[in-house]
């Protein structure tokens, strides 16, 4: 085994040029081959790439798809985000546990199958869903989970679980997934027809400065959520000092309730890759990286093929379209870390490090990937770029509003009759969105995912645009039967799990927020807890280092503002002058166990 491991690790490292920048690829490959990256493997990798063992451990311990202890040959990752739970993920989980005879986090006695939770895997429109290794299974039921487990135990081949393919390219021979696009409202910009070379050819006939000017004229802003003007970002990067530059496409959509990039990558990959190439030309880059979240590994062979075809057709590689521009793209796989959607964390990950965000300044435009000036753009932003080049910035800016030009893809899920992806004009009211998706009785809507804001009916006339209801695309609908404080608790669970732990307010503050929310949900809250939550939430928001911590308290802060009644209902009034905060019985429980009798006072 040991000799075997040694040879295999050496081979994997050599295939990556013994380059520690490729650490993610190395540890992912070792994990795939041996079911873990054990201590011995860490020593071997460290030796090959000339790093310290603890540096390898640092990376392995950061990503949830990697492990230093053996996992089963098959890992079932059941999505347990709030939407999946609303659709019965708990019953599915119970069925898996019963059929496999294990609890979540455990591996079957024969070492073959591991069952785990995963935060959002980008399938909220077909929940409950799970990953079986790289294979996506959707719309699970308890019975379905039982059958799936039985089958899996027999053939141990995840791909055999897929009997019917989804629509469009989901049925492509290199994807073969049961995933459905649920593309309910294709719009004119992202999902319009595409000519693979048109935008790029037009761009290459202009000067880089002219390309940047066109993007600036279009008033395109980043579609990931932050909304930074794309043209300006490119201009800064082009103007920064550095011998080499880099374009990164952020395809790490991990915000719960977001799945629009999944559909773009399935149906319009050429648009994304053309957008990256145009960005590369505009800023003077020679290298592009598509950072694909680990959950979307099922799309990788397809995307590699699209890349290869673009190379063959002269749209990528050396001397693109005969215009003397050299640019190529590699795919960097993630390994299960929401924080890597934050652009500097994403860069860390591409560099073969833990996904810790970096200190700013310097900004990526000045010093990004390997200290090179770097542009990081969202999948949807790069798609919009191709449209701007094809039809001109004027035609693009005719869509949307003055502050938010173009269209926006929304990923709609939850209590609505038509969940899926919608391309809408910026400026559409939330009320119209809800009508479109069949959610007439929505009691609360989370716009922008957990890091966004929870709004109620009083806000339904607000508009989807950067200056009002900004969103990276996630729209989660909650009907009147849902308890918003429970939803907040789930969101906090997510942030506690996904915080990188680098800075104090995010690492500790989210744990403390969740503690008090649980307290309130257990009926032990006090009126002063609301003030406590407000102050704690503001501390996390103000003092955290990156966008995760700066927004993780939003579920608490926006519901305290918009749904205060939901909290007040959960806080019992004083009875007999006492508040139920302190649980005397629980406090003396350990002592009672030691002395072997119950306290009279605690149980009175």
């Amino acid at each position, binding site marked *: 085994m040991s000799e075997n491991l040694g040879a295999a690790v050496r081979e994997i490292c050599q295939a990556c040029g013994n380059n520690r920048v490729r650490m993610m690829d190395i540890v992912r490959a070792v994990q795939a081959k041996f079911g873990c990256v054990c*201590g011995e493997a860490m020593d071997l990798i460290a030796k090959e790439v000339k790093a*310290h*063992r*603890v*540096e390898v*451990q*640092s990376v392995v*311990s*950061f990503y949830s798809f990697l492990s230093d202890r053996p996992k089963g040959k098959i890992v079932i990752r059941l999505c347990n985000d709030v939407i999946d739970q609303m659709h019965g993920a708990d019953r599915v989980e119970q069925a898996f546990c019963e059929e496999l005879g294990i609890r979540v986090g455990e591996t079957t006695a024969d070492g073959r199958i591991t069952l785990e939770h995963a935060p959002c895997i980008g399938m909220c429109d077909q929940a409950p869903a799970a990953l079986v290794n790289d294979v996506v299974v959707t719309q699970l039921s308890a019975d379905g989970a039982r059958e799936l487990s039985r089958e899996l135990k027999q053939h141990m081949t995840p791909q055999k679980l897929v009997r019917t393919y989804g629509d469009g390219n989901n049925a492509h021979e290199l994807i073969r997934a049961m995933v459905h696009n649920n593309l309910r409202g294709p719009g004119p910009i992202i999902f319009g027809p595409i000519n693979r070379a048109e935008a790029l050819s037009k761009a290459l006939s202009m000067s880089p400065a002219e390309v940047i000017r066109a993007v600036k004229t279009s008033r395109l802003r980043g579609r990931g959520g932050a909304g930074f003007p794309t043209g300006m970002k490119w201009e800064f990067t082009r103007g920064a000092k550095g011998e080499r530059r880099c374009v990164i496409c952020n395809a790490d959509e991990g915000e719960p309730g977001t799945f629009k990039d999944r559909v773009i990558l399935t149906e319009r990959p050429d648009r994304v890759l053309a957008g990256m190439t145009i960005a590369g030309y505009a800023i003077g880059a020679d290298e592009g990286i598509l950072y694909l979240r680990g959950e979307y590994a099922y799309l990788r062979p397809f995307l590699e093929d699209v890349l290869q075809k673009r190379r063959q057709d002269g749209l990528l590689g050396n001397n693109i379209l005969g215009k003397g521009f050299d640019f190529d793209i590699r795919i960097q796989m993630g390994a299960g*870390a929401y*924080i890597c959607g934050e652009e500097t964390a994403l860069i860390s990950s591409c560099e073969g490090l*833990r996904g810790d965000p970096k*200190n700013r*300044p310097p900004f990526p435009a000045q010093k990004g990937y390997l200290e090179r000036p770097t542009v990081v753009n969202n999948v949807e932003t790069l798609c919009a770029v191709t449209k701007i080049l094809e039809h001109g910035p004027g035609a693009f800016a005719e869509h949307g509003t003055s502050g938010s030009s173009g269209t926006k893809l929304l990923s709609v899920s939850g209590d609505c009759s038509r969940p899926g992806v919608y391309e809408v004009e910026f400026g559409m009211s939330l009320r119209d969105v809800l009508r479109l998706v069949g959610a007439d009785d929505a009691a609360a809507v989370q716009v922008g995912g957990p890091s966004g804001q929870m709004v109620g009916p009083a806000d339904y006339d607000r508009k989807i645009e950067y200056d009002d209801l900004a969103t990276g695309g996630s729209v989660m609908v909650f009907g009147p039967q849902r308890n918003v404080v429970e939803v907040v608790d789930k969101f906090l669970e997510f942030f*506690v*799990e*996904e*915080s*990188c*732990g*680098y*800075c*104090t*307010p995010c*690492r*500790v*503050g989210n*744990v*403390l927020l969740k*503690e008090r929310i649980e307290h309130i949900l257990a009926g032990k809250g006090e009126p002063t807890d609301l003030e*406590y939550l407000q*102050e*704690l939430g*503001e*501390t996390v928001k*103000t*003092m*955290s*280092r990156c966008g995760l911590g700066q927004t993780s308290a939003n579920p608490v802060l926006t519901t305290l503002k918009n749904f205060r009644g939901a909290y007040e209902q959960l806080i019992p009034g004083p009875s007999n002058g006492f508040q139920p905060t302190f649980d005397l019985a629980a406090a003396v429980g350990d002592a009672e166990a030691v002395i072997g009798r119950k306290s009279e006072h605690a149980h009175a």
Partner: protein
Amino acid sequence: MSDMIQITIDGREIEAQPSQTILEAAQNKGVYIPRLCYMKGLIPHGSCRICTVMVNGRPQSACTTPVAPGQVVENNTDKLMALRKNIIEMLFVEGNHYCMYCEKSGNCELQALAYRFGIAAPKYPYLFPQRDVDASHRDVLIDRNRCILCGRCVRSSRDVDGKHVFEFVGRGPEKRVAINAEAKLSDTNLEVRDAAVEACPVGAILKKRVGYAVPVGQRMYDHEPIGSDVEAGAAK
């Protein structure tokens, strides 16, 4: 010195070298910005967030933010002091800090900050984590109950000692400082004279056989609050 630039901190004009961070520029002029993960000579980490100041109205860590011409910095405001106090309290409840018998008492930067900020007891609930102690090394011990994840040992070992004995592993609340060996500190090449051993601001990395050597009354922070030395520089 024509290349000096001007910034203001709490309304006071301060002259700074362009290569300085806000924290360094302030320190130079006798303005103390509370901090924990910062240590002179190490690459700033920006992780504890205690040195957060408002830079032109936006919160930024003073230890990582370079000065820029015309910067308006707020430091000693009621709002920031309250926010910093919350962060210090978070560090106390996150670990297991028992000052009364800790060898580092009186010389501990976390304890000293708590005194400076007037923290008698944290308002947050203690989390009482399970953490381990590694006393395998002949001369040095690690008590992770007191670790505040400031990364000073990590950076000192890597950048000053050139050894990389320490590194962060895990994430979120599971994040901890690991050592460059399978199991024990004694399996690493750490030596008692390493900068990494001196770098710990709390009692997480301690030298053996020297505990309580300094009597109460003569310890670093027994008489003057932390930061007094910086502020005394202003009087000169």
